[in-house]
Protein backbone atom coordinates (compact mmCIF):
# COMPACT_ATOMS: atom_id res chain seq x y z
CA UNK A 1 0.00 0.00 0.00
CA UNK A 2 2.71 2.41 1.06
CA UNK A 3 4.70 1.54 -2.02
CA UNK A 4 1.95 2.05 -4.57
CA UNK A 5 2.79 5.68 -5.24
CA UNK A 6 6.51 5.07 -5.68
CA UNK A 7 8.08 4.01 -8.94
CA UNK A 8 8.71 0.31 -9.52
CA UNK A 9 10.96 -0.85 -6.68
CA UNK A 10 14.58 -0.95 -7.72
CA UNK A 11 16.82 -3.94 -7.08
CA UNK A 12 18.45 -1.99 -4.28
CA UNK A 13 15.14 -1.36 -2.50
CA UNK A 14 14.28 -5.03 -2.82
CA UNK A 15 17.57 -5.99 -1.28
CA UNK A 16 16.97 -3.56 1.58
CA UNK A 17 13.53 -5.01 2.13
CA UNK A 18 14.93 -8.52 2.32
CA UNK A 19 17.55 -7.44 4.83
CA UNK A 20 14.88 -5.74 6.91
CA UNK A 21 12.86 -8.97 7.05
CA UNK A 22 15.97 -11.09 7.62
CA UNK A 23 17.16 -9.41 10.81
CA UNK A 24 14.23 -10.12 13.20
CA UNK A 25 13.67 -13.42 11.40
CA UNK A 26 17.22 -14.62 11.96
CA UNK A 27 17.19 -13.57 15.60
CA UNK A 28 13.98 -15.45 16.37
CA UNK A 29 14.96 -18.52 14.39
CA UNK A 30 18.24 -18.87 16.24
CA UNK A 31 17.08 -17.88 19.71
CA UNK A 32 13.46 -18.96 19.76
CA UNK A 33 12.59 -21.68 17.26
CA UNK A 34 15.86 -23.65 17.04
CA UNK A 35 16.01 -24.00 20.86
CA UNK A 36 12.67 -25.83 20.81
CA UNK A 37 14.00 -28.31 18.28
CA UNK A 38 16.93 -28.84 20.61
CA UNK A 39 14.68 -29.51 23.57
CA UNK A 40 12.89 -32.13 21.52
CA UNK A 41 16.21 -33.70 20.54
CA UNK A 42 17.66 -33.74 24.02
CA UNK A 43 14.48 -35.22 25.47
CA UNK A 44 15.41 -38.33 23.48
CA UNK A 45 18.91 -38.45 24.87
CA UNK A 46 20.36 -40.30 27.84
CA UNK A 47 21.58 -38.64 30.99
CA UNK A 48 25.28 -38.86 31.84
CA UNK A 49 27.70 -37.30 34.28
CA UNK A 50 29.64 -34.29 33.08
CA UNK A 51 28.97 -31.19 31.02
CA UNK A 52 26.74 -31.18 29.09
CA UNK A 53 24.97 -33.81 31.19
CA UNK A 54 23.52 -35.78 28.28
CA UNK A 55 24.80 -38.17 25.63
CA UNK A 56 24.92 -36.94 22.04
CA UNK A 57 22.18 -38.43 19.87
CA UNK A 58 24.51 -39.45 17.08
CA UNK A 59 27.75 -41.35 17.23
CA UNK A 60 30.22 -41.88 14.39
CA UNK A 61 31.44 -45.45 14.64
CA UNK A 62 34.19 -45.98 12.03
CA UNK A 63 32.02 -45.84 8.94
CA UNK A 64 28.56 -46.14 10.50
CA UNK A 65 26.51 -43.24 11.76
CA UNK A 66 24.57 -44.39 14.78
CA UNK A 67 21.46 -42.57 15.84
CA UNK A 68 20.36 -43.48 19.31
CA UNK A 69 16.96 -42.31 20.47
CA UNK A 70 16.00 -42.98 24.02
CA UNK A 71 12.24 -43.01 24.57
CA UNK A 72 12.52 -44.03 28.17
CA UNK A 73 12.08 -40.44 29.44
CA UNK A 74 8.73 -40.12 27.70
CA UNK A 75 7.56 -43.52 28.85
CA UNK A 76 8.48 -42.50 32.37
CA UNK A 77 6.77 -39.10 32.19
CA UNK A 78 3.59 -40.62 30.79
CA UNK A 79 3.36 -43.51 33.21
CA UNK A 80 4.78 -42.07 36.42
CA UNK A 81 2.13 -40.99 38.91
CA UNK A 82 4.01 -37.96 40.24
CA UNK A 83 4.30 -36.35 36.80
CA UNK A 84 0.77 -37.22 35.81
CA UNK A 85 -0.46 -35.67 39.04
CA UNK A 86 1.70 -32.59 38.51
CA UNK A 87 0.25 -32.03 35.01
CA UNK A 88 -3.29 -32.49 36.28
CA UNK A 89 -2.70 -30.23 39.29
CA UNK A 90 -1.25 -27.54 37.03
CA UNK A 91 -4.23 -27.68 34.67
CA UNK A 92 -6.70 -27.67 37.56
CA UNK A 93 -5.04 -24.74 39.33
CA UNK A 94 -4.81 -22.79 36.07
CA UNK A 95 -8.48 -23.45 35.27
CA UNK A 96 -9.81 -22.54 38.71
CA UNK A 97 -7.68 -19.42 39.03
CA UNK A 98 -8.63 -18.28 35.51
CA UNK A 99 -12.30 -18.60 36.47
CA UNK A 100 -11.75 -16.80 39.78
CA UNK A 101 -9.90 -14.00 38.00
CA UNK A 102 -12.79 -13.58 35.59
CA UNK A 103 -15.13 -13.00 38.55
CA UNK A 104 -12.94 -10.22 39.93
CA UNK A 105 -11.68 -8.77 36.65
CA UNK A 106 -14.98 -8.46 34.80
CA UNK A 107 -16.74 -6.17 37.30
CA UNK A 108 -13.53 -4.16 37.66
CA UNK A 109 -13.12 -3.75 33.88
CA UNK A 110 -16.84 -2.98 33.57
CA UNK A 111 -16.67 -0.40 36.32
CA UNK A 112 -13.69 1.31 34.72
CA UNK A 113 -15.29 1.27 31.26
CA UNK A 114 -18.38 3.02 32.61
CA UNK A 115 -16.40 5.88 34.15
CA UNK A 116 -15.79 9.23 32.49
CA UNK A 117 -12.93 9.16 29.93
CA UNK A 118 -10.55 11.16 32.12
CA UNK A 119 -10.91 8.97 35.20
CA UNK A 120 -10.77 5.89 32.93
CA UNK A 121 -7.17 6.51 31.88
CA UNK A 122 -6.16 7.12 35.50
CA UNK A 123 -7.83 3.88 36.62
CA UNK A 124 -6.21 1.88 33.80
CA UNK A 125 -2.88 3.37 34.83
CA UNK A 126 -3.54 2.27 38.43
CA UNK A 127 -4.31 -1.27 37.25
CA UNK A 128 -1.07 -1.40 35.26
CA UNK A 129 1.29 0.00 37.93
CA UNK A 130 1.45 -3.18 40.06
CA UNK A 131 2.26 -5.16 36.91
CA UNK A 132 5.32 -2.96 36.38
CA UNK A 133 6.64 -3.66 39.86
CA UNK A 134 8.45 -6.89 40.56
CA UNK A 135 6.23 -9.96 40.70
CA UNK A 136 8.70 -11.80 42.92
CA UNK A 137 8.52 -9.16 45.63
CA UNK A 138 4.76 -8.90 45.45
CA UNK A 139 4.56 -12.66 45.98
CA UNK A 140 6.98 -12.25 48.86
CA UNK A 141 4.66 -9.65 50.37
CA UNK A 142 1.80 -12.18 50.29
CA UNK A 143 4.03 -14.52 52.28
CA UNK A 144 4.17 -12.02 55.12
CA UNK A 145 0.41 -11.44 54.89
CA UNK A 146 -0.60 -15.11 54.85
CA UNK A 147 1.88 -16.59 57.33
CA UNK A 148 0.58 -18.15 60.56
CA UNK A 149 1.97 -15.15 62.44
CA UNK A 150 1.24 -12.87 59.50
CA UNK A 151 -0.97 -9.83 59.09
CA UNK A 152 -4.15 -11.61 58.04
CA UNK A 153 -4.14 -13.98 60.99
CA UNK A 154 -3.24 -11.16 63.39
CA UNK A 155 -6.20 -9.17 62.09
CA UNK A 156 -8.65 -12.09 62.26
CA UNK A 157 -7.51 -12.95 65.79
CA UNK A 158 -7.89 -9.36 66.89
CA UNK A 159 -11.49 -9.05 65.71
CA UNK A 160 -12.14 -12.41 67.33
CA UNK A 161 -13.30 -14.13 64.15
CA UNK A 162 -10.92 -17.01 64.81
CA UNK A 163 -9.31 -18.24 68.01
CA UNK A 164 -6.39 -20.01 66.40
CA UNK A 165 -4.32 -18.88 63.44
CA UNK A 166 -5.44 -20.33 60.10
CA UNK A 167 -2.87 -22.17 58.08
CA UNK A 168 -3.00 -20.50 54.66
CA UNK A 169 0.61 -20.17 53.58
CA UNK A 170 1.98 -23.38 52.03
CA UNK A 171 -1.47 -24.54 50.96
CA UNK A 172 -3.28 -24.59 47.63
CA UNK A 173 -5.40 -21.61 48.77
CA UNK A 174 -2.25 -19.50 48.96
CA UNK A 175 -1.34 -20.51 45.40
CA UNK A 176 -4.78 -19.40 44.19
CA UNK A 177 -4.50 -16.07 45.98
CA UNK A 178 -1.03 -15.50 44.54
CA UNK A 179 -1.96 -16.41 40.97
CA UNK A 180 -5.22 -14.46 40.91
CA UNK A 181 -3.41 -11.46 42.35
CA UNK A 182 -0.39 -11.58 40.02
CA UNK A 183 -2.19 -12.19 36.74
CA UNK A 184 -5.24 -9.98 37.36
CA UNK A 185 -4.08 -7.06 35.15
CA UNK A 186 -3.72 -9.45 32.18
CA UNK A 187 -7.39 -10.31 32.56
CA UNK A 188 -8.66 -6.79 33.24
CA UNK A 189 -6.99 -5.03 30.30
CA UNK A 190 -8.33 -7.07 27.35
CA UNK A 191 -11.85 -7.10 28.84
CA UNK A 192 -11.66 -3.38 29.47
CA UNK A 193 -10.53 -2.68 25.92
CA UNK A 194 -13.44 -4.60 24.34
CA UNK A 195 -15.94 -3.06 26.76
CA UNK A 196 -14.73 0.49 26.21
CA UNK A 197 -14.74 0.13 22.43
CA UNK A 198 -18.20 -1.48 22.36
CA UNK A 199 -20.87 0.60 20.71
CA UNK A 200 -22.95 2.23 23.46
CA UNK A 201 -25.86 2.90 21.13
CA UNK A 202 -26.55 -0.85 20.94
CA UNK A 203 -27.19 -0.95 24.68
CA UNK A 204 -29.34 2.16 24.49
CA UNK A 205 -31.29 0.56 21.66
CA UNK A 206 -31.85 -2.58 23.74
CA UNK A 207 -33.07 -0.42 26.64
CA UNK A 208 -35.35 1.56 24.33
CA UNK A 209 -36.82 -1.69 23.08
CA UNK A 210 -37.78 -2.59 26.62
CA UNK A 211 -34.88 -4.68 27.78
CA UNK A 212 -34.26 -4.57 31.50
CA UNK A 213 -30.82 -3.48 32.67
CA UNK A 214 -29.79 -7.00 33.52
CA UNK A 215 -31.05 -8.60 30.35
CA UNK A 216 -29.50 -5.80 28.24
CA UNK A 217 -26.22 -6.67 29.90
CA UNK A 218 -26.51 -10.40 29.20
CA UNK A 219 -27.89 -10.06 25.69
CA UNK A 220 -25.81 -7.13 24.41
CA UNK A 221 -22.86 -6.08 26.54
CA UNK A 222 -21.60 -9.50 27.56
CA UNK A 223 -21.57 -11.06 24.07
CA UNK A 224 -19.78 -7.96 22.75
CA UNK A 225 -17.06 -8.38 25.39
CA UNK A 226 -16.48 -12.09 24.70
CA UNK A 227 -13.38 -11.58 22.50
CA UNK A 228 -11.76 -9.71 25.38
CA UNK A 229 -12.80 -12.39 27.86
CA UNK A 230 -11.28 -15.12 25.66
CA UNK A 231 -8.06 -13.18 25.09
CA UNK A 232 -7.78 -12.57 28.82
CA UNK A 233 -8.35 -16.25 29.62
CA UNK A 234 -5.69 -17.36 27.12
CA UNK A 235 -3.20 -14.73 28.32
CA UNK A 236 -3.64 -16.02 31.85
CA UNK A 237 -4.27 -19.74 31.56
CA UNK A 238 -1.27 -20.74 29.43
CA UNK A 239 1.52 -19.09 31.45
CA UNK A 240 -0.09 -20.14 34.75
CA UNK A 241 0.13 -23.83 33.80
CA UNK A 242 3.91 -23.53 33.79
CA UNK A 243 4.15 -21.15 36.75
CA UNK A 244 7.14 -21.67 39.01
CA UNK A 245 7.58 -18.78 41.45
CA UNK A 246 4.10 -18.73 42.98
CA UNK A 247 3.73 -22.46 43.78
CA UNK A 248 7.33 -22.53 44.98
CA UNK A 249 6.97 -19.66 47.44
CA UNK A 250 3.31 -19.84 48.47
CA UNK A 251 2.45 -23.50 47.98
CA UNK A 252 3.29 -26.45 50.15
CA UNK A 253 5.38 -29.49 49.38
CA UNK A 254 2.23 -31.51 48.69
CA UNK A 255 1.06 -29.31 45.80
CA UNK A 256 3.40 -30.01 42.93
CA UNK A 257 2.94 -27.97 39.76
CA UNK A 258 4.73 -28.89 36.56
CA UNK A 259 6.87 -25.75 36.30
CA UNK A 260 8.36 -26.55 39.66
CA UNK A 261 8.88 -30.19 38.68
CA UNK A 262 10.92 -29.07 35.66
CA UNK A 263 12.95 -26.72 37.85
CA UNK A 264 13.72 -29.48 40.35
CA UNK A 265 14.62 -31.94 37.58
CA UNK A 266 17.13 -29.44 36.22
CA UNK A 267 18.72 -28.03 39.32
CA UNK A 268 18.29 -30.77 41.94
CA UNK A 269 18.36 -34.02 39.96
CA UNK A 270 20.49 -32.62 37.08
CA UNK A 271 18.59 -34.89 34.71
CA UNK A 272 18.42 -32.63 31.67
CA UNK A 273 16.97 -35.17 29.21
CA UNK A 274 14.15 -35.92 31.66
CA UNK A 275 13.50 -32.21 32.20
CA UNK A 276 13.40 -31.75 28.43
CA UNK A 277 10.87 -34.58 28.09
CA UNK A 278 8.66 -33.07 30.82
CA UNK A 279 8.89 -29.72 28.98
CA UNK A 280 7.93 -31.26 25.63
CA UNK A 281 4.85 -32.92 27.13
CA UNK A 282 3.88 -29.60 28.78
CA UNK A 283 4.27 -27.85 25.45
CA UNK A 284 2.16 -30.50 23.72
CA UNK A 285 -0.58 -29.93 26.33
CA UNK A 286 -0.51 -26.20 25.60
CA UNK A 287 -0.32 -26.39 21.82
CA UNK A 288 -4.11 -26.41 21.44
CA UNK A 289 -4.77 -23.20 23.41
CA UNK A 290 -1.67 -21.50 21.92
CA UNK A 291 -2.65 -22.25 18.34
CA UNK A 292 -6.20 -21.12 19.07
CA UNK A 293 -4.95 -17.89 20.63
CA UNK A 294 -2.58 -17.19 17.74
CA UNK A 295 -5.14 -17.77 15.04
CA UNK A 296 -7.45 -15.35 16.88
CA UNK A 297 -4.68 -12.78 17.12
CA UNK A 298 -3.82 -12.95 13.43
CA UNK A 299 -7.49 -12.86 12.49
CA UNK A 300 -7.94 -9.69 14.54
CA UNK A 301 -4.95 -8.10 12.88
CA UNK A 302 -6.37 -9.06 9.50
Amino acid sequence: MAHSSAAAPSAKANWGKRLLIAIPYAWLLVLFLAPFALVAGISLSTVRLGMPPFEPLTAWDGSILNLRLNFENFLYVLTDDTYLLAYLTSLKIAAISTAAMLFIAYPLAYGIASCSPSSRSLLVFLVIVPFWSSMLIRVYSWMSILRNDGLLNALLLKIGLISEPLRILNTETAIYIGIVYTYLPFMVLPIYSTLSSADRTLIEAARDLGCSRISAFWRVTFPLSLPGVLAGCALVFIPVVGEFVIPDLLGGADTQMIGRAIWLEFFNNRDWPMAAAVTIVLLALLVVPIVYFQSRQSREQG
Partner: protein
Amino acid sequence: MTKPRWFNRLSILFGLAFLYLPIVVLVVYSFNGSKLVTVWGGFSTQWYATVLNNPSIIEGAKVSFLVAAVSATAATLLGTLAAIVMVRLRRFRGRALLNGMLLAPMVMPEVVMAVSMLLMFVTLGIDRGPLTITLAHTTFTLCFATVVLQSRLVELDPSLEEAARDLGCPPAKAFVSVALPNMIPALVSAWLLSFTLSLDDLVISSFTTGPGASTLPMKIYSQIKFGVTPEINAISTIILGIVVFGLVAAQLVSRRSEQRVSAAA
Protein backbone atom coordinates in the same frame (compact mmCIF):
# COMPACT_ATOMS: atom_id res chain seq x y z
CA MET B 1 -24.86 2.38 31.96
CA THR B 2 -26.86 -0.68 32.65
CA LYS B 3 -25.89 -1.34 36.23
CA PRO B 4 -26.34 0.78 39.31
CA ARG B 5 -23.48 3.13 40.02
CA TRP B 6 -22.70 1.80 43.50
CA PHE B 7 -21.94 -1.62 42.04
CA ASN B 8 -19.33 -0.15 39.66
CA ARG B 9 -17.77 1.93 42.41
CA LEU B 10 -17.59 -1.06 44.73
CA SER B 11 -15.98 -3.34 42.16
CA ILE B 12 -13.37 -0.72 41.27
CA LEU B 13 -12.65 -0.13 44.95
CA PHE B 14 -12.39 -3.82 45.72
CA GLY B 15 -10.19 -4.55 42.70
CA LEU B 16 -7.77 -1.73 43.38
CA ALA B 17 -7.60 -2.52 47.10
CA PHE B 18 -6.69 -6.10 46.24
CA LEU B 19 -4.02 -4.96 43.77
CA TYR B 20 -2.44 -2.48 46.16
CA LEU B 21 -2.70 -4.30 49.49
CA PRO B 22 0.62 -6.23 49.26
CA ILE B 23 2.42 -3.18 47.89
CA VAL B 24 1.25 -1.01 50.77
CA VAL B 25 2.23 -3.72 53.27
CA LEU B 26 5.66 -3.92 51.66
CA VAL B 27 6.32 -0.18 51.77
CA VAL B 28 4.98 0.30 55.31
CA TYR B 29 7.00 -2.56 56.75
CA SER B 30 10.20 -1.49 55.03
CA PHE B 31 10.20 1.31 57.63
CA ASN B 32 9.47 -1.01 60.54
CA GLY B 33 12.03 -1.01 63.34
CA SER B 34 11.08 -4.55 64.35
CA LYS B 35 12.12 -7.74 62.60
CA LEU B 36 8.60 -9.18 62.94
CA VAL B 37 5.89 -8.38 60.43
CA THR B 38 3.09 -8.25 62.98
CA VAL B 39 4.93 -6.07 65.48
CA TRP B 40 5.42 -2.39 64.78
CA GLY B 41 8.80 -1.44 66.24
CA GLY B 42 8.67 2.24 65.39
CA PHE B 43 9.78 4.12 62.29
CA SER B 44 13.26 3.20 61.18
CA THR B 45 15.38 3.28 58.05
CA GLN B 46 17.74 0.59 59.30
CA TRP B 47 16.78 -1.92 56.59
CA TYR B 48 17.74 0.58 53.91
CA ALA B 49 21.15 0.93 55.55
CA THR B 50 21.48 -2.88 55.61
CA VAL B 51 20.63 -3.10 51.90
CA LEU B 52 23.08 -0.38 50.88
CA ASN B 53 25.83 -2.07 52.88
CA ASN B 54 25.19 -5.49 51.40
CA PRO B 55 27.77 -5.96 48.61
CA SER B 56 26.03 -9.06 47.25
CA ILE B 57 22.76 -7.15 46.70
CA ILE B 58 24.58 -4.20 45.13
CA GLU B 59 26.46 -6.56 42.81
CA GLY B 60 23.19 -8.27 41.80
CA ALA B 61 21.58 -4.89 41.16
CA LYS B 62 24.49 -3.89 38.90
CA VAL B 63 24.18 -7.08 36.84
CA SER B 64 20.39 -6.67 36.63
CA PHE B 65 20.47 -3.03 35.54
CA LEU B 66 23.21 -3.65 32.96
CA VAL B 67 21.41 -6.67 31.49
CA ALA B 68 18.06 -4.85 31.51
CA ALA B 69 19.45 -1.72 29.84
CA VAL B 70 21.28 -3.61 27.09
CA SER B 71 18.48 -6.07 26.37
CA ALA B 72 15.78 -3.37 26.44
CA THR B 73 17.77 -1.35 23.90
CA ALA B 74 18.34 -4.38 21.68
CA ALA B 75 14.69 -5.45 22.00
CA THR B 76 13.46 -1.97 21.08
CA LEU B 77 15.72 -1.81 18.00
CA LEU B 78 14.79 -5.32 16.84
CA GLY B 79 11.16 -4.65 17.77
CA THR B 80 11.12 -1.53 15.58
CA LEU B 81 12.39 -3.57 12.62
CA ALA B 82 9.87 -6.33 13.34
CA ALA B 83 7.03 -3.81 13.63
CA ILE B 84 7.98 -2.19 10.31
CA VAL B 85 8.13 -5.61 8.67
CA MET B 86 4.76 -6.70 10.08
CA VAL B 87 2.88 -3.44 9.47
CA ARG B 88 4.44 -2.03 6.30
CA LEU B 89 5.55 -5.06 4.30
CA ARG B 90 2.23 -6.79 4.16
CA ARG B 91 3.08 -9.73 1.93
CA PHE B 92 6.21 -11.83 2.08
CA ARG B 93 6.98 -15.50 2.38
CA GLY B 94 7.10 -16.71 5.98
CA ARG B 95 5.01 -13.87 7.38
CA ALA B 96 2.79 -16.22 9.39
CA LEU B 97 5.82 -17.91 10.95
CA LEU B 98 7.35 -14.57 11.93
CA ASN B 99 4.04 -13.47 13.41
CA GLY B 100 3.82 -16.72 15.35
CA MET B 101 7.35 -16.40 16.69
CA LEU B 102 6.65 -12.81 17.71
CA LEU B 103 3.48 -13.69 19.62
CA ALA B 104 4.36 -17.07 21.13
CA PRO B 105 6.67 -15.80 23.91
CA MET B 106 3.78 -13.73 25.32
CA VAL B 107 1.84 -16.84 26.25
CA MET B 108 4.63 -19.39 26.55
CA PRO B 109 5.30 -20.49 30.13
CA GLU B 110 8.60 -18.95 31.19
CA VAL B 111 10.02 -22.26 32.24
CA VAL B 112 9.65 -23.67 28.71
CA MET B 113 11.59 -20.78 27.16
CA ALA B 114 14.16 -20.98 29.94
CA VAL B 115 14.86 -24.68 29.35
CA SER B 116 15.11 -24.27 25.59
CA MET B 117 17.49 -21.33 25.79
CA LEU B 118 19.73 -23.09 28.28
CA LEU B 119 20.02 -26.10 25.98
CA MET B 120 20.74 -23.77 23.05
CA PHE B 121 23.62 -22.06 24.81
CA VAL B 122 25.05 -25.33 26.05
CA THR B 123 24.88 -26.84 22.55
CA LEU B 124 26.54 -23.81 20.97
CA GLY B 125 29.19 -23.94 23.67
CA ILE B 126 28.68 -20.32 24.74
CA ASP B 127 29.87 -19.67 28.29
CA ARG B 128 26.86 -18.78 30.39
CA GLY B 129 26.89 -15.44 32.17
CA PRO B 130 25.68 -11.86 31.67
CA LEU B 131 25.91 -12.22 27.87
CA THR B 132 23.63 -15.25 27.68
CA ILE B 133 21.12 -13.68 30.09
CA THR B 134 21.10 -10.58 27.88
CA LEU B 135 20.49 -12.63 24.70
CA ALA B 136 17.67 -14.55 26.40
CA HIS B 137 16.08 -11.39 27.81
CA THR B 138 16.28 -9.63 24.44
CA THR B 139 14.41 -12.55 22.89
CA PHE B 140 11.57 -12.74 25.39
CA THR B 141 11.09 -8.97 25.73
CA LEU B 142 11.28 -8.53 21.95
CA CYS B 143 7.71 -9.71 21.46
CA PHE B 144 6.31 -7.30 24.06
CA ALA B 145 8.27 -4.41 22.51
CA THR B 146 7.00 -5.37 19.05
CA VAL B 147 3.36 -5.43 20.16
CA VAL B 148 3.66 -1.91 21.60
CA LEU B 149 5.44 -0.55 18.51
CA GLN B 150 3.17 -2.35 16.05
CA SER B 151 0.03 -0.87 17.56
CA ARG B 152 1.52 2.61 17.27
CA LEU B 153 2.73 2.10 13.72
CA VAL B 154 -0.72 0.91 12.62
CA GLU B 155 -2.22 4.19 13.81
CA LEU B 156 0.27 6.34 11.90
CA ASP B 157 -1.01 7.95 8.72
CA PRO B 158 1.13 6.64 5.82
CA SER B 159 0.15 9.57 3.61
CA LEU B 160 2.68 11.85 5.34
CA GLU B 161 5.48 9.48 4.44
CA GLU B 162 4.11 9.05 0.94
CA ALA B 163 4.17 12.81 0.53
CA ALA B 164 7.83 12.91 1.56
CA ARG B 165 8.60 10.18 -0.95
CA ASP B 166 6.68 11.87 -3.73
CA LEU B 167 8.95 14.84 -3.06
CA GLY B 168 11.93 12.58 -3.77
CA CYS B 169 12.83 11.31 -0.33
CA PRO B 170 14.13 7.69 -0.30
CA PRO B 171 11.83 5.31 1.68
CA ALA B 172 14.25 4.70 4.55
CA LYS B 173 14.88 8.40 5.00
CA ALA B 174 11.16 9.15 4.77
CA PHE B 175 10.55 6.66 7.57
CA VAL B 176 13.30 8.05 9.78
CA SER B 177 12.40 11.69 9.32
CA VAL B 178 8.58 11.41 9.20
CA ALA B 179 7.36 8.27 10.98
CA LEU B 180 10.05 7.83 13.63
CA PRO B 181 9.50 11.15 15.45
CA ASN B 182 5.84 10.18 15.83
CA MET B 183 6.87 6.85 17.33
CA ILE B 184 8.84 8.33 20.23
CA PRO B 185 6.18 7.71 22.91
CA ALA B 186 5.84 4.10 21.74
CA LEU B 187 9.62 3.66 21.65
CA VAL B 188 9.88 4.97 25.21
CA SER B 189 7.16 2.67 26.50
CA ALA B 190 8.51 -0.34 24.58
CA TRP B 191 11.94 0.27 26.10
CA LEU B 192 10.53 0.72 29.60
CA LEU B 193 8.37 -2.37 29.31
CA SER B 194 11.33 -4.48 28.14
CA PHE B 195 13.53 -2.99 30.85
CA THR B 196 11.03 -3.80 33.61
CA LEU B 197 10.34 -7.32 32.34
CA SER B 198 14.05 -8.03 32.22
CA LEU B 199 14.66 -6.51 35.64
CA ASP B 200 11.90 -8.67 37.12
CA ASP B 201 12.72 -11.98 35.50
CA LEU B 202 13.79 -14.82 37.76
CA VAL B 203 13.16 -18.04 35.86
CA ILE B 204 14.87 -17.32 32.52
CA SER B 205 17.84 -15.66 34.27
CA SER B 206 18.32 -18.65 36.58
CA PHE B 207 18.46 -21.07 33.66
CA THR B 208 20.64 -18.99 31.35
CA THR B 209 23.26 -17.78 33.79
CA GLY B 210 26.47 -19.41 34.90
CA PRO B 211 28.44 -19.28 38.11
CA GLY B 212 29.31 -15.78 39.22
CA ALA B 213 26.54 -13.83 37.49
CA SER B 214 23.44 -13.54 39.67
CA THR B 215 20.78 -10.96 38.98
CA LEU B 216 18.91 -9.10 41.71
CA PRO B 217 15.80 -11.33 41.53
CA MET B 218 18.03 -14.39 41.92
CA LYS B 219 19.60 -12.89 45.03
CA ILE B 220 16.19 -11.90 46.41
CA TYR B 221 14.84 -15.37 45.66
CA SER B 222 17.63 -17.13 47.53
CA GLN B 223 17.19 -14.75 50.48
CA ILE B 224 13.45 -15.49 50.58
CA LYS B 225 14.10 -19.22 50.44
CA PHE B 226 16.65 -18.80 53.20
CA GLY B 227 14.12 -17.08 55.43
CA VAL B 228 11.94 -13.97 55.49
CA THR B 229 14.11 -10.93 56.04
CA PRO B 230 12.87 -7.34 56.39
CA GLU B 231 15.71 -6.31 54.09
CA ILE B 232 13.65 -7.51 51.12
CA ASN B 233 10.96 -4.95 51.99
CA ALA B 234 13.51 -2.17 51.67
CA ILE B 235 14.93 -3.48 48.38
CA SER B 236 11.40 -3.84 47.03
CA THR B 237 10.47 -0.32 48.04
CA ILE B 238 13.57 1.07 46.32
CA ILE B 239 12.74 -0.84 43.10
CA LEU B 240 9.10 0.25 43.35
CA GLY B 241 10.20 3.88 43.74
CA ILE B 242 12.39 3.65 40.62
CA VAL B 243 9.60 2.01 38.60
CA VAL B 244 6.94 4.53 39.64
CA PHE B 245 9.31 7.40 38.90
CA GLY B 246 10.06 5.94 35.45
CA LEU B 247 6.36 5.37 34.71
CA VAL B 248 5.31 8.86 35.68
CA ALA B 249 8.21 10.34 33.68
CA ALA B 250 7.24 8.23 30.65
CA GLN B 251 3.61 9.36 30.96
CA LEU B 252 4.72 12.99 31.02
CA VAL B 253 7.07 12.50 28.04
CA SER B 254 4.41 10.80 25.94
CA ARG B 255 1.74 13.34 26.88
CA ARG B 256 4.03 16.23 25.97
CA SER B 257 5.09 14.75 22.64
CA GLU B 258 1.48 13.88 21.82
CA GLN B 259 0.54 17.50 22.50
CA ARG B 260 3.39 18.59 20.24
CA VAL B 261 2.23 16.24 17.50
CA SER B 262 -1.36 17.40 17.75
CA ALA B 263 -0.23 21.04 17.85
CA ALA B 264 1.85 20.49 14.73
CA ALA B 265 -0.91 18.68 12.88
